[in-house]
């Protein structure tokens, strides 16, 4: 079957049970052909420091190697807040709670009363990604079309879990009746379908889930497929961009001294580089690479600068090569992805960092040091500067814009779509960087 990148954004690992039970759920999801899962932590009441995610990802059994995958299997963390009043919504998702919510990749909210539901749909919360509605019992509130429309406008995703559909008859009846209404009103837009599985036997394969939801809930097959793949993908990229990017566009990397960048730091890099739907989301890359030895880049040195800049405005001719660049970090951890030495250039560079405290790099976005080619939209801009001596540091800046129309894309990246390379911007950045360095 074609690899389309399916997601299951709600797997409920049991804290009380042994980790083997949890691992078996995730392993089953991998077996069934999902390419990413989110481990859900349901929570009720106020968040405290002790609720930060403990184990972000479970180790997979060796059977994972059965799947000769091009892509690594990703595991995200997710928190689902059960909210029973408007005040609870406001306090749980207030800016003061942002620090804790940030520790999770995805933040979902489950309204338990009408007031909570209305408030979630109406008010703007920076950190909320999903409104998850529990269809397994009778809904304690009424879904309202105007409220749903408001939520959709603000880019919230609505979640339907399919585990009630395969559970006992009563919850199935309940779920079909209510979820059908939601599907009808949203028309599949911003809808995600997830399993909400407690045990491995509750997960179904992606195509089974698509068929089940399209047949029982009246979604069209395409929409149902999108609900398991494209919608989840845009949701995750949006959520991660909110958390790890400065003004949603510029990635700020933390460079640690004498330490390999661990896979957690690279989640996002994987995400950007990893492209299960290459025809829908295209790439644009701009590499300013000071190493003249890399012959695949066109050398373009110019005078007056201490460094020679090596500019590659085209996405490398071989698209796959580009796709793999950021993935290699994970290859270190889990060696499922075969790669050539050539492709590991990016990672090597990152790992070479022998020096350096955390560099926060306040780059202005309006410079737009980006050149657009082929109308492509995912921008990876890696700026690295090597001050010629043994000291090395690099600053990676990633501009990311998956090509979905509905994604919230800051307008400043649109302005970045000028066809000329603004050298002054780069110069400024380099100077700034040097200043920080010295």
């Amino acid at each position, binding site marked *: 079957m074609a690899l389309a990148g399916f997601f299951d954004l709600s797997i409920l690992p049991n804290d009380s049970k042994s980790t083997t039970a949890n691992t078996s759920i995730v392993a089953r999801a991998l077996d069934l052909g999902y390419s990413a899962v989110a481990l859900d932590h349901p929570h009720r009441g106020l968040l405290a420091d002790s609720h930060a995610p403990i184990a972000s990802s479970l180790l997979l059994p060796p059977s994972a190697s059965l799947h000769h995958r091009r892509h690594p299997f990703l595991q995200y963390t997710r928190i689902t807040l059960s909210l029973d009043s408007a005040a609870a919504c406001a306090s749980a998702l207030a800016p003061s709670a942002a620090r804790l919510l940030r520790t999770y990749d995805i933040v979902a909210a489950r309204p338990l009363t009408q007031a909570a539901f209305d408030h979630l749909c109406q008010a703007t919360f920076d950190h909320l990604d999903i409104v998850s509605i529990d269809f397994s019992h009778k809904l304690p509130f009424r879904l309202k079309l105007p409220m749903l429309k408001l939520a959709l406008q603000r880019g919230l995703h609505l979640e339907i879990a399919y585990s009630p559909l395969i559970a006992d008859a009563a919850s199935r009846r309940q779920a079909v009746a209510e979820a059908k209404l939601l599907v009808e009103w949203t028309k599949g837009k911003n809808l995600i379908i997830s399993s909400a599985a407690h045990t*491995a036997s*509750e*997960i179904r394969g992606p195509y089974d889930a698509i*068929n089940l939801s399209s047949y029982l809930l009246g979604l069209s097959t395409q929409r149902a497929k999108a609900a398991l793949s494209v919608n989840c993908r845009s949701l995750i990229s949006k959520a991660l961009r909110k958390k790890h990017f400065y003004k949603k566009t510029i990635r700020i990397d933390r460079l640690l001294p004498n330490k390999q960048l661990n896979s957690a730091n690279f989640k996002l890099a994987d995400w950007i580089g990893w492209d299960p739907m290459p025809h829908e989301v295209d790439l644009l890359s701009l590499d300013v690479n000071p190493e003249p030895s890399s012959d695949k880049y066109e050398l373009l040195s110019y005078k007056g600068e201490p460094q020679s800049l090596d500019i590659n405005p085209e996405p490398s001719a071989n698209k796959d090569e580009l796709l793999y660049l950021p993935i290699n970090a994970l290859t270190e951890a889990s060696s499922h992805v075969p790669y050539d030495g050539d492709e590991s250039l990016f990672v090597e560079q990152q790992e070479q960092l022998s020096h350096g405290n955390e560099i926060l790099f306040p780059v202005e976005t309006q410079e737009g040091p980006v050149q657009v080619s082929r109308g492509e939209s995912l921008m990876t801009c890696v700026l690295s500067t090597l001050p010629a001596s043994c000291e090395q540091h690099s600053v990676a800046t990633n501009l990311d814009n998956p090509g979905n129309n509905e994604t919230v894309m800051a307008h400043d990246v649109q302005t970045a779509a000028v066809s000329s390379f603004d050298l002054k911007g780069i110069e400024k950045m380099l100077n700034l960087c040097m200043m920080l360095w010295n």
Partner: protein
Amino acid sequence: MVHFKNRYMVMEAFIDTAGKGQSDPLILTQLNVTKAIRDSIQINFGECGLAACLGSLQDHQKVWAAITMVRSIGKIPVSFNLRDVSGSIRACKKAALECEEAKFEYYKLAAGDRITPKFVETMESCFNKIKGLES
């Protein structure tokens, strides 16, 4: 009028033995699998749905949804996963063989020396069974 087409599905069954102790392993037979699917159709789509499905075998989506909703055979939790759906047995045969062989390869790797000749024999007979399907 479009010509009536058959649909053939290759399903994979996951049997969970871990939870209920190692009582007696479930043996999948034609009988208990059909019974489970038939029951599922009847529960979910009613008497008429069952009749429509069995009568003409049309509407494979319905049968597929019913198979997805199967949770157990007897008392042992089982879940089905679709591997392939196509209009000819030949294509299905190919998909099933590929799937089986990949799994067997993996098993060989995992088991190493502990693999018994008897097991290999059983697998060979399974492969032959798949190959021997009418096409």
